[in-house]
């Protein structure tokens, strides 16, 4: 008979019980995180089939490596690190690299240091009102795809998954400052890309 895994149990307690052989505890962890890990994987890999592979790899890997989880980090931080690495490994195996960088969407300035054009820069802030929802979803996914890996993962984790900077830093194994620098640059590129989509040059 399977032991019940109450919803109120902490992740680390469930991980400990799963390691001790209580399968229901691991199933409870999967139930708790499957949506989050899938959402993260879709943003990091784009294609649904790739995201499913990442999710499955993640939970199988976590299960097999439960012994190595020492509880020094939060379980969720460890899980997202496994998921992020699985997504990056998949992309490398597939040899997927952005075909065209988003650098050209970084802000430009004139000689006096002013934004280069007298354009309505705020129009990008209304991109979701101006662009058809399905087209925007397609273009947004393309934009994430075109970000270099070193910018995509921090931006997705911090700005799209809304994790605190320190947790993103722990997931990626970099400093808080590096996370912030990369998120900032990703935001600038993506802001410029949205501007381009609504007909305003960055």
């Amino acid at each position, binding site marked *: 008979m399977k032991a019940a895994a109450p919803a109120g149990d902490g992740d680390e307690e469930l991980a400990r019980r*799963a*390691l*001790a*052989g*209580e*399968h229901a505890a*691991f*199933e409870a962890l*999967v139930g708790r995180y*499957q*949506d989050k890990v*899938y*959402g993260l994987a*879709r943003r990091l890999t784009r294609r*649904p089939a790739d*995201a*499913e592979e990442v*999710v*499955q790899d993640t*939970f*199988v890997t976590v*299960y097999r490596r*439960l*012994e190595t989880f020492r509880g020094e980090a939060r379980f969720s931080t460890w899980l997202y690190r496994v998921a992020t690495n699985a997504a990056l490994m998949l992309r490398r195996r597939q040899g997927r690299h952005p075909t065209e960088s988003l650098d050209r969407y970084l*802000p430009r*300035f004139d000689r*006096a*240091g*002013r*934004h280069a054009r*007298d*354009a*309505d*820069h*705020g*129009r*990008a*802030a209304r*991109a*979701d009102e101006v662009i058809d*929802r399905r087209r*925007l*979803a397609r*273009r*947004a*996914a393309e*934009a*994430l795809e075109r970000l270099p890996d070193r910018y995509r993962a921090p931006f997705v984790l911090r*700005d*799209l998954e*809304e994790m605190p900077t320190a947790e993103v830093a722990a997931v990626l194994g970099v400093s808080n400052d590096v996370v*912030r620098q990369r*998120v*900032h640059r990703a*935001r*600038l590129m*993506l*802001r410029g890309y*949205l*501007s381009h989509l609504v007909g305003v040059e960055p």
Partner: protein
Amino acid sequence: MKRSVTCRDGVPLLMDYVEGMLPSRTRGAIDAHVAGCARCQGFVRSYLETPRILRAATAHRLPERFARRLRRTVGTLPPGRRPPARPRSAG
């Protein structure tokens, strides 16, 4: 004479600016520039909205078909390799 802040000066500081992490003196200088610069006002607005727009546009729900497959996969994983800790024998 002290040079006034330009749009170019503000962009590298924008993340710290919108998240309230700049020293008050620097923040004041940027505030003063933005207040008088329509381009920067639009730029700041779009910078702030970019994560929200991308978040909404790339949100995906776990497909139920895959959730069922995942449950089956997890259900077939072998039992934990380490047995529950046994009580220590006395002595």
